[in-house]
């Protein structure tokens, strides 16, 4: 299977792949800062170089942290939570 071999090839050179990705990110920011026509921007803020990079990165971190906090605040629970307890009857306790 050729595709699997390609993936293996890339996995064996993970460091290089990471460096290439970093270079792409840097180039993207450079391109945005220098030559992108920003007349389509909707707000003044967006004209700052790399505004959307910062937005994406902070947004991603925010989503992960806020969601995990929300989840661990009591929303996440054991997998058999909804299963009917066998044998003795359980009271439907509003536990949230």
């Amino acid at each position, binding site marked *: 299977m050729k*595709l699997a071999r390609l993936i293996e090839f890339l996995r064996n050179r993970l460091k290089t792949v990471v460096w290439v990705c970093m270079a792409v990110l840097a180039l993207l920011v450079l391109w945005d800062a220098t030559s992108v026509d920003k007349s*389509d921007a*909707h707000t003044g803020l967006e004209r700052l170089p790399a505004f*959307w990079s910062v937005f994406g990165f902070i947004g*991603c971190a925010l*989503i*992960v942290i806020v969601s995990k906090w929300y*989840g661990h605040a009591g929303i*996440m629970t054991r997998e058999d939570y909804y299963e009917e307890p066998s044998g003795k009857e359980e009271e439907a306790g509003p536990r949230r």
Partner: protein
Amino acid sequence: MNNFWLHPSLILLLGGVLLFLAPARLKKGLLLLAPILVFARILTMAKGTYGTVPFFGTDLTFGRVDALSSVFGYIMALMCIIGTLYGMHVKENAQHATAWVYVAGSLGAIYAGDYITLFLFSEVMAFSSVFLVWFRRRPQSLAAGFRYLLVHVSGGLALLGGMVLHCKAQGSWAFGQLDVAHPTPAIYLILAGFLLNAAVPPLHAWLPDAYGEATFNGSVFLCAFTTKTAVYALCRAFAGMDLLIYLGVAMALYGVVYAVLENDCRRLLAYHIISQVGYMVAGVGIGTEMAINGACAHAFAHILYKALLFMGCGSVLYMTGESKFTELGGLWKKMPWTFVFTLIGGLSISAFPLFSGFVSKSMIVSAGFHERKLWVGMLLMLASSGTFLHTGLKVPYFIWFGKNKPKTEVWNRAAEPPGNMMAAMLIASLLCIFIGCYTPYLYNMLPYPLEALKYQPYTSYHISETLQVLLFTGLGFFLLIKKLKPEALISLDLDWFYRMGGRAFLWLAQKPIQSADTFVGELYRVAGLVPLMFTALLAGRFDNTIIDGAVDGLAESVRGLGRRLRLAQRGEMRQNLALAFAVAAILIVAFLLFVR
């Protein structure tokens, strides 16, 4: 109905019946043929109003073919081909037949020109789609299916109540744009019915519940039809309703939050349906030509990429029997092509340039920015970041890579799925890329094609903006990967209220109500029955002695009176009559003589 108009749903319903009658060797051909015929029928339908049937003083319209219904009909039929191809190897006819009835319901609702037809077909959808959950045949599927059905029946009742009130007030059953600036309670009821089908929080919990529990190919159908038919109905009736903007943005983010927590890949995708439908609902709420175009385009693109994602995860489930991230990992060696297809779906939903989401989602975001609703645009961009985080990164990473090692038997079972499943994924992938690369294909089909063709998604600013958000989200993902590690937990959602509420009701029925019933029974026996028997005894005595005595006495006196009267009677009828006439004659003569 002057001349016969072939409704596309009819082909599917007929095909569904034929499936049970056709010999086994023709079955595969029929499975391909019927959806293709439906697609061909939709391509050849000219714009206009057809299939009008008089019904109790009103007209039912089965075929309103216009720009809006055409684009939805087109993609539904296309999806039916792909979905049927994906599950073609499934032997059980009933599974295909129910899926087709479901699609037929969706097409019927889309081409319906009046509320009655719309309602009937949406009920057909609800009652046929539940089988796609039940056919998985797990005890959990049965329960999830019943919950799905109960929720949808409630939604149907809201729609029914709203439409009856509304149409009685308006004097017409026609289904069209409502007066969203001055909504009446009836309009809100109709809206509630549609919002439930579109899975708008707080009416959304049925979606991950059912879609995560459906058969591997059932979910592929489910993810396309119910919510997008609701989006169509919202486009038709509620364009420009401000409330929808808020709901849409909220649900775009809500889905993202729950997707972070989710451990089951298909439930994660289900939460992302909620998120993506949020964009469409917000588009409908903005209501400008560009926004409605965006909502339709996004629904079109969404059906394809979401089906592709569900097909990818469905393949993993079908082959390995697992859909939880904690049970999967490192499958790239076994299922590399499934990985690539799923990745294409992930890139499309994340709106990467050259993929379908890029040309559709951005229309809605731009419409938000254009209407000077900056917060709409910004929050939808944030949801985009979340979309890529999960569907583009989390799903492929934790199934096909990751540090987790699946159990040996899971690992041994893993392999690329059968050819027809691969073919369906390939077709959907190619379409996702085609739509992203050649925009006129989709844009020409939209309700306002002139406005759509003016829109240019591929500007350097838009490409740079999107790539920055997405790629830096990717950077964030790999930096925060430890925090994102899936946990073998479930997340409570609003279905908690009816799941535990149902249990509380049962408990209430078993415990307090039953004891109350026993208590009342005992009370009745002690305080009711015993005194009652005593009173009955007394009443009996009273009846026997006093009443009977009185009645007997009365009867005795009447008999005595009768006996005496009888003596005055003469035996002969004629004599009696003569006597009577004589008395009458005397009276008349006396009257004439004395009164005059």
